């Protein structure tokens, strides 16, 4: 079975705390992702996502606070706008936009984090590996 590599960019206050809660609650999920901790999802630059695809990621998950709940007022709205634009750019690169996933996960939603990881892994398995030429585009 194809095991996709996933990079997860998580804000520390909501999605990261949710991922911690999944651990504290011992909710098992697929080990395909490695989490990178940001203070806010608003720090995530589209370039980081492209870099991940270029370096071998099959999927990128961005996790932030639910709309209205951002620790820094409105960082997640900035993320929302950036991801929307970036998704269109991915189309142009020939990268399936389903490989980039944005999820709002609160500090209380450990179960949601676990199910998102399982679901995303499954989806990426069905998409299969990214073609080397496409990956080249992201570089």
């Amino acid at each position, binding site marked *: 079975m194809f095991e996709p590599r996933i*990079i997860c960019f998580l804000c520390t206050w909501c999605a990261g705390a949710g991922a911690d809660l999944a651990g504290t609650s011992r909710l098992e999920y697929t080990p395909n992702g490695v989490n990178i901790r940001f*203070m806010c999802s*608003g720090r995530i630059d589209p370039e980081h996502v492209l870099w991940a695809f270029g370096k071998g990621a099959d999927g990128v998950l961005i996790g932030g606070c639910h709309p209205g709940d951002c620790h820094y007022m409105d960082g997640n709205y900035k993320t929302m706008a950036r991801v929307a634009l970036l998704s269109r750019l991915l189309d142009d690169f020939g990268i399936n936009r389903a490989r980039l996933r944005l999820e709002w996960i609160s500090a209380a939603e450990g179960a949601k984090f676990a199910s998102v990881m399982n679901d995303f892994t499954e989806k990426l398995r069905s998409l299969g590996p990214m073609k080397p030429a496409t990956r080249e585009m992201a570089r």
Partner: protein
Amino acid sequence: MKRIGVFVCHCGINIASTVDVQKVAEEVGKMPGVVFATDYIYMCSDPGQALVREKIREENLDAVIVAACSPNLHESTFRTAAGEAGLNPWQLEIANIREQCSWVHSDREKATEKAIRIVKAMVEKTRLNESLDPISVPITRKALVIGGGIAGIQAALDIADAGYEVILVEKEPSIGGHMAQLSETFPTLDCSQCILTPKMVAVGKHGNIELMTYSTVEEISGYVGNFTVKIRRKAAYVDWSICTGCGQCTEVCPAKVPSSFDRNFSTHGAVYVPFPQAVPNKPVIDREHCIHFKTGKCGLCEKTCEIGAIRFDQEDQVFRREVGAVVVAAGYDTLPLSELKEYGAGRVPDVIDGLAFERLLSASGPTNGEIRRPSDGKVPKEVVFVQCAGSRDPERHKPYCSKICCMYTTKHALLYRHRVHDGQPYIFYIDIRTGGKGYEEFYHRAEEDEGIIYLRGKVAKIFRDGAETVVWGTDTLTGKNVEIRADLVVLATAVIPRKSTARLVRKLHIQAGPNGFLAEAHPKLRPVESINSGFYLAGAAQGPKDIPESVAQAGGAACKVISLFSRNRLEQDPAVAWVDEDLCGGCRICISVCPYDARKFDEEKGIAVVNEALCEGCGSCVAACACGATQQKNLTDVQIKNMITASLGGK
């Protein structure tokens, strides 16, 4: 090249059972610059920390990675240890291989591989970490307490008694909260108002407390130690600064408004004081029901008031205050009867909730303490109390236990028996939960000595039949269905967060849990703090609680505030935004995205600069910067990219 040390924690078997910690240390030890790598059974123990200090000195380490639990738990522990050994604390990073690895995976090989990637990514980040110094900021030694129920009152008094100023904001015209509505309190049967009103008066008179009732928090900005808050005081249409509280206006007002304090069992005028012991004891005019506001006529109150305190032209006022800490004691509500369709959805007149029954029991209530049912004023002889009305019901209502109902229902039934000697109380329950000092004894007294019939089972349906209210339930101990033709039914409705709590959570940027109650920083060890620095929690806004627990938590929250205020200055995380002056083109996009006004344009230099004291380190401006001139300290784009590469197994 930096000399890096890596310490991999077993956490007993918490990490080591799923992650091959030796292999992690071995693999990471092969990375360039990693001059020392080991595993250890408990890194957070004293010997574990001593090992870090010892190796920093022995190996002359420039940076350290501790691969262990979430950085939320021990980042500060290890950074302090590093500092003690002479290493800059910001040269130490935590790689989270427990919550985000060993606890969520079972395949040892895959978990080990993932742990290696996590630690390698952190090595790459730390390689480029700068040594930083904390940003020191002054602190405003004044607290804001939101909510004037027993929790808010207690927190305000404790902070004020310690010598610090407090602003207590309450949205109702008076402080007191739900406790002021209660008759007696379990298990001692103390009169609720008798023990509460002295505290309310103390708040009103305290030289360190600025009491702002009929007010709400509109906006808050800033950070721990330095918040700016906007408070809106609703127009009372009464000039409180000259009003003597004589009450003449409330007597002449011809309007009739249902009293929410009395759960609509009585009425008051459009100009009213919510209850006789109100603090402040000053009336407000309910604009919606005031005849003057509706028709332009009447004005009886204005004519009656000799000192001219009635001011129909008064407007809402907005105040700005600087505070250093915030205690959130926003209180609770109970599930509206309308949500309980199976129990008549609030349309059966003799089905009431527990708070309404409190008002019937209260000596100062609408019936002066006589138990009379709402439909016809008759004294009820058969009263059914239904526990868990909406609680412990994940399919239809709330999944959680409301905690206070077992005890207050027992109290209700007992007090009912004391008032109506020939009356028969029944209590339907799922389980009786009496965790608390004297609670179990109180329950036994009710069950054995007071003739209360306890029926173990849920009530399926409640409906009206003529003058009677029919209750269909099951007694699971005899296995029989039960029908009781009751004169009055009292539902112990679920404790829920106030509707306004969700709005407050957004305004304060704090967190709430899945059921809408405020989230604490740690369920066991930091129960009175929000995860957001400077915010503390008290009372039932954090979860269902009885009075002693609310008072204890409020005292705890107050102590946290006092401890914060005992410092001279506060240290802030220095991982803030930074500008490369040579690269900045002065486009000012960073200024437009900064939520804290921390980015300013320097006209002289023609570039956008950072005010470090205001910068919260979110990194929004860094992502927005088109030319890479703005970077976040210790989380630069290069560091992030190197982390990504390492996470993916690349170099």
